[in-house]
Structures are given as structure tokens and as C-alpha cells.
């Protein structure tokens, strides 16, 4: 069975090619069937691989499927080979499984679009590249997939290249921004690969793993810092996260598949895959943990102030990726991957539900200030979104609860301030996710026009979501505490964590998390259901208006709200406004723009030197001669 692993790549490639060349003859339905069918077939192959692996001895659950000798130059060797182990199979199941559901959903969502065919070609190509990324048994192959998903993401973000609006600017620019920011990460990746090759002498994961012992601490740290740079680009962490919110300019299924469930987790996967290097570089691991923790916190505060449903989800994705980064940083690889899996379920669910909202509202409205009481109009979507939000908020029983707590448990052992940051972020997560639920689906309709025209989406767009919803609820069962199934399963690939919590501590922390999540939902309820339903305008207005006497009078009744306004929202708003305006848009954006402008103006000045005159050119040449002669005669 395992030898047939190459089939998993063939299907999406076939789908992309068929749709590319004969798609225009197949019609919408045919294209959709081919594209989704191929991903479903890939999923079936992944299942086969899973069971094939399960049949192997628990400690040797790894197999390499050699396809062909890809590059052999001197001593440098990179095969085209697939590494089948618990980690890659888990990822493949998520990518093809969630991918298949989203493909099916997209058939309804993209119905009637002008570029229906192109969309599915890109989408299948993305699945192919993502599978190359996770299944390659060496760094070069992984890099190929890494660039491939970047390209697919770029093409899909810019899918509505002719649109532009206030929220995203020119849509094509959003794609370009994503691609360019990612190039910074790729730069780190490529250098890391070179460094690994020169210091270990191989780029094949298995051989690097065995040869890693020869690495000096300095070399391992340098490699891991470069890998961290790569991961911050792809997985949208500080300081390279800026592209992800803009990436929401793409069609919603793309946001769900690429920018929430799969591609953005590539950085986390890569760190887990190279865990043997990170174990040698505790400094880099610590830095990764802090990057993750701070990203989680910052993105959560920003999510709290957003009014665009997809942007709330985008910042929430960044925040959740921060959790995963925190997890791999502290060495809880299995839990980070576990969270990656559950996150793929519930975040895909949330995005697709948001897609239903967008689809069902006039003009594709996404501003939650204009929604309210959508539950009456789209009950199915409401329940789906509610389940997703509960999982995201980490309410007990839901999948997000277990995976997030697995990470927090290990963080608590690693560093208490980081644990507190993580816990606090969990509180914020519960608040912002239920803020979205309450503002969009409950309360009163704030914009009658929007409300009147709202309608539920067709079955093709709700049925796949029920599968995701089911997984979002019970996904936690993959790794029940004490029973330790998935964690144990992954240990064959990512190694066992050095730290084993005792059961008491585990349950205490679980209880704390449960309380925090419920408290967050309660706070959101108080603020957005009980409170004046026009509140969001005031929130984004800032602290000043919150503390105004009128506000105080209006809220005197609820002790909870006062507490919330004074102790949480106030400082938080300040913080999030600061993050959003100063860090996100101010520092980072400006830095990105500045680099661009400096290069452009430098390029412009260099261009002016080319005045087209032979004497100028001859003089430039002569200056070169003089410089070279001086160097060689005097310096040499």
C-alpha cells in the first residue's frame, strides 16, 4: 500500500491538468466533479497510507517511497522521494480531507463566476504543492512545495484582481504583498538549507536527523533562527504577519483552505519536521515560543476591534498560529500538530460559515455592525458558526479546548509569564469569537435592508460544513487527556516531549482553561447581548468614549460590564489600537513600504545615470578601470 503513495500527488496534478486543458468543454459541473473528485481520491489514498502505517510496528512507523533520483551533483543528493510517517500522514489527511470538503463547498460558492475553471485549476495545484511540501523527504523537495503553495496563494488572493475597495485596496496588490512578504521568509529557508547542507552534508531529513549530533550549538542555532524566519513568513507570525489579513481579499473558500487550514500551518509543520534541530538550539526554541506567544496576544487584541467578519477570522488565525508556534517553541510538537488539526477543522468551518453569510447577504456584506439577528434568516449557518466559535473559544468538550490546553500545559512548565500570556489570550479569544457570534447572529437587526435580503445558502454549501462541525466538536477525542492517542501516535515522528505532566496538574490547568473560556463567553454576552447593541462603534471609538459619564451611567447596572470596560477593554483597546495602528500599520507597514521606496528611488537614481551618452558610459568604465587598478596595485 505504501508504495502507492505517489498516487496521492498524481490525482490533484491530473485534476489541474484536465481542467486546464479540457475544462472549458466540461462545463461548471464537470470541472467541479473533476477537481473535487481528485482531491477525494487523494484523501482515500491518505487513508490507505494511514492504515498502512498503522499496520507497522509502533516504533518503526516510517517509510520512504523513492520516486526518482532528482538531483545528484557531486556529493549533493536530493531524491524525489516521499516520507510516510505519522506526521506527514496526519498532515496529508488534513490537507486532503479538509481540502476535499472545501472543494465541494466551493462548487456552490463560486457558482456562476467568470473564472470558475481557473479557480479550480489553481485550487488543485495548491493541493498538489501542499502535498509536495508535507510529503517530501528532504529540504529541497519541501522548498519546492513551499514556493508552490506561495505561488498558488498569490494567484488565488489576486483572483478578483479587478476589484478594489476600502477594506483591501486593490485586490491584486494584496496578492503581491503576500508573495513579497513570503519571499523574506523563503530567503531564510533557502539559507537554512544551504547551512544544513554544508554542516551536515545532506538535505534528506532522515540523514540530517542522524547527522545532527555533529552540529555545534552555534550552527544549530543559526539554522533554527533562519528556519524561524521562514516560519514567521509562511505562518504569519510577528513581524511578518502583515500579509495574512490582506490575503482575505481572495475568495472565501481560499481563505478557509489556504489561509486558515493548511498553507499557513506549513511553518509549524516545518518546525515539527525539523524538531531534531530545534532540540539542539534551545535559544531559538525559546525565541520561537516568545514570537508565538506575543503574536497570539497581539492578534487576539486586534481581532477584538475588527468589524469585518473575515478579518476577525484572519486575526484569529494569526493568533491561533501563534499558539502553535508557542507549542513547537516549547517542544510540545505533538500538541502543536494536534492543535493544527483541530484548528483546521474549526477554522475552515468558521470561514465557510462566514462565506455563507457573505453569500447570503446583499453585496457580500461582511461588516458585523450591519448584521444582527441573522439567526432568524440563516439558522443552519448560525448553528455551524456557533459550533466553530465554541471550538475556537476553547469551550469544554469542543476540540479546541483539548488541543489548546495541551499546548498551555507544556508552556506552564516552560515559562510562567508565557503561560499567563497564553491564558489571557484564551480569554480574549473567547470574547472576540463570541462577539462575532452575538453581533452577527443574535440581538436586533441593525440594518434592515441587509436583514431583509438575507437568505440561507444552498445545501452544497451547508452539508460539507456539517462534516467539519462534527469534527470540530469531537476532534478533541483524537487525543483525550490520559488516554493520549494522537500525541502518542505522532511521537514516532516528532519524538516524545521531555516533560510529562502529572494528572493533577493537568486537571487543574484544564479547569482553569475551562473557567477562562466560559468567562470570556460570559463577558462577551454581557457586553454585546445585554449591553447597548450599538456598542461596536463605541469600542472602536476608543477608551475616551468608554469612560465618558454617559457610558458609565448606562452601564452602572452591570457590574460585569464595568469591570470589563475598566480592566480589560480599556487597557486592551489601548493596546490593540496601538498594535493595530502603530505596530501593524505604523511600524511594520511603514518599514515594508520604506524598504520598497528606498529600493525604488535608488533604482530611479541609478536609472538617471543612464543618460544614453557614450562619453558617460566610457567614463563609468574608466572609473571601474581606475578602481580595479588601485585595488590590485595598491591593495594587492
Amino acid at each position, binding site marked *: 500500500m505504501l508504495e502507492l503513495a505517489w498516487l496521492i500527488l498524481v490525482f490533484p496534478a491530473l485534476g489541474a491538468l484536465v481542467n486546464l486543458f479540457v475544462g472549458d468543454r466540461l462545463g461548471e459541473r464537470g470541472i467541479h466533479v473533476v477537481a473535487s473528485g481528485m482531491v477525494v481520491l487523494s484523501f482515500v489514498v491518505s487513508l490507505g497510507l494511514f492504515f498502512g502505517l498503522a499496520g507497522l510496528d509502533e516504533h518503526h512507523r516510517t517509510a520512504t517511497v523513492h520516486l526518482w533520483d532528482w538531483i545528484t551533483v557531486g556529493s549533493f543528493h536530493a531524491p524525489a522521494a516521499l516520507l510516510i510517517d505519522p506526521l506527514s500522514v496526519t498532515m496529508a489527511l488534513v490537507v486532503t480531507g479538509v481540502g476535499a470538503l472545501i472543494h465541494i463547498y466551493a462548487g456552490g460558492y463560486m457558482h456562476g463566476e467568470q473564472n470558475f475553471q481557473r479557480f479550480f485549476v489553481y485550487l488543485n495545484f495548491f493541493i498538489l504543492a501542499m502535498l509536495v511540501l508535507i510529503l517530501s523527504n528532504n529540504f529541497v523537495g519541501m522548498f519546492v512545495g513551499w514556493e508552490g503553495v506561495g505561488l498558488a496563494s498569490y494567484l488565488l488572493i489576486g483572483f478578483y484582481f479587478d476589484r478594489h475597495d476600502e477594506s483591501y485596496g486593490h485586490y491584486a496588490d494584496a496578492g503581491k504583498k503576500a508573495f513579497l512578504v513570503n519571499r523574506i521568509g523563503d530567503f531564510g529557508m533557502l539559507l537554512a538549507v544551504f547551512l544544513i547542507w554544508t554542516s551536515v552534508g545532506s538535505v534528506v531529513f532522515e540523514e540530517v536527523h542522524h547527522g545532527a549530533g555533529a552540529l555545534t550549538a552555534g550552527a544549530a542555532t543559526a539554522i533554527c533562527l533562519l528556519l524561524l524566519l521562514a516560519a514567521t513568513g509562511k505562518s504569519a507570525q510577528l513581524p511578518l504577519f502583515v500579509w495574512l489579513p490582506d490575503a482575505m481579499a481572495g475568495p472565501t473558500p481560499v481563505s478557509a483552505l489556504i489561509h486558515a487550514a493548511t498553507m499557513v500551518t506549513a511553518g509549524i509543520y516545518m518546525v515539527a519536521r525539523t524538531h531534531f534541530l530545534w532540540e539542539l538550539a534551545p535559544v531559538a526554541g525559546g525565541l520561537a515560543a516568545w514570537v508565538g506567544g506575543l503574536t497570539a496576544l497581539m492578534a487576539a487584541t486586534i481581532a477584538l476591534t475588527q468589524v469585518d467578519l473575515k478579518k476577525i477570522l484572519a486575526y484569529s488565525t494569526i493568533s491561533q498560529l501563534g499558539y502553535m508556534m508557542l507549542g513547537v517553541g516549547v517542544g510540545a510538537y505533538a500538541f502543536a500538530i494536534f492543535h493544527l488539526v483541530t484548528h483546521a477543522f474549526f477554522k475552515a468551518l468558521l470561514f465557510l460559515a462566514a462565506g455563507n453569510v457573505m453569500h447570503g447577504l446583499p453585496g457580500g456584506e461582511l461588516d458585523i455592525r450591519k448584521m444582527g439577528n441573522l439567526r432568524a434568516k440563516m439558522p443552519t449557518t448560525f448553528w455551524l458558526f456557533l459550533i466553530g466559535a465554541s471550538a475556537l473559544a476553547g469551550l469544554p468538550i469542543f476540540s479546541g479546548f483539548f488541543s489548546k490546553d495541551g499546548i498551555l500545559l507544556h508552556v506552564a512548565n516552560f515559562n510562567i509569564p508565557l503561560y499567563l500570556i497564553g491564558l489571557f489570550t484564551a480569554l480574549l479569544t473567547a470574547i472576540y469569537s463570541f462577539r462575532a457570534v452575538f453581533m452577527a447572529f443574535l440581538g436586533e437587526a441593525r440594518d434592515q435592508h441587509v436583514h431583509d435580503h438575507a437568505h440561507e445558502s444552498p445545501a452544497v454549501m451547508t452539508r460539507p460544513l456539517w462534516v467539519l462541525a462534527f469534527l470540530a466538536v469531537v476532534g478533541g477525542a483524537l487525543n483525550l487527556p490520559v488516554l493520549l492517542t494522537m500525541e502518542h501516535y505522532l511521537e514516532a515522528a516528532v519524538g516524545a516531549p521531555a516533560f510529562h505532566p502529572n494528572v493533577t496538574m493537568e486537571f487543574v490547568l484544564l479547569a482553569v482553561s475551562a473557567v477562562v473560556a466560559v468567562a470570556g463567553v460570559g463577558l462577551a454576552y454581557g457586553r454585546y447581548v445585554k449591553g447597548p447593541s450599538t456598542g461596536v462603534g463605541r469600542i472602536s471609538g476608543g477608551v475616551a468614549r468608554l469612560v465618558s459619564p454617559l457610558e458609565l451611567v448606562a452601564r452602572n447596572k452591570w457590574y460585569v460590564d464595568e469591570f470589563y470596560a475598566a480592566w480589560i477593554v480599556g487597557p486592551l483597546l489601548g493596546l490593540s489600537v496601538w498594535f493595530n495602528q502603530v505596530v501593524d500599520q505604523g511600524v511594520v507597514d511603514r518599514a515594508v513600504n520604506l524598504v520598497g521606496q528606498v529600493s525604488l528611488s535608488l533604482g530611479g537614481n541609478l*536609472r538617471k545615470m*543612464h*543618460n*544614453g*551618452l*557614450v*562619453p558617460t558610459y*566610457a*567614463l563609468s568604465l*574608466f572609473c571601474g578601470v581606475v578602481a580595479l587598478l588601485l585595488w590590485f596595485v595598491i591593495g594587492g
Partner: protein
Amino acid sequence: MVPLSWYLMLAAFLFSCGLYGALARRNAIAMLMGIELMLNAANINLVAFWRHGVGPMEDLTGQAFAVLIIGLAAAEAAVGLALIIAVYRERRTIDVDELDLLSG
């Protein structure tokens, strides 16, 4: 025998004269003349090195090289003058400062 360094200095002087001509003149033919001087400076070097026996005397490399350079210089002049005529027909000038259609 005249020492090698004298020849080298003469060649360097000739080269500099040619260089000045090539850099300072705006007339394409004058630039070409400067370039010819620079080539001949190299020839003086080659022949002087040979005469002063940097290699075996029966090996005529230095001389042969110089003769070939003279030949190539002639070819270069032929191509160059042809191009200058073509430019003149088009623009009625051979001032290189006026060749500015292509820039930036």
C-alpha cells in the same frame, strides 16, 4: 640595449594619450583614433617583452600577437567606419553626444 622599462613607459604614455582621446573627444572618428593608439600601446608592450626575452627567443609569441592585433585593429576600423557612415546617413552628425535616443 634600451632597458625594458623605457618601452613600458612609452607604451603607458601612448596608452594614456589614446585614453584621453577616447574619453575627451566627442567625434566618433577621433574616439576611434584614440582607441587605435591604445591598441598600439599594447603592441609596443608585446614586442618589447619578446625582445627582452620573457620567454624563449625562438618562440615568436609576442611578435605574432602584435601582428594579429594589427590585423584585428584594421577589421575593427573597417566595421567602425562603416557604422559611422551609417549613423551619418541617418543623423547627419557623428557627434556621440547626439546619440541619445536610447537612455534611462
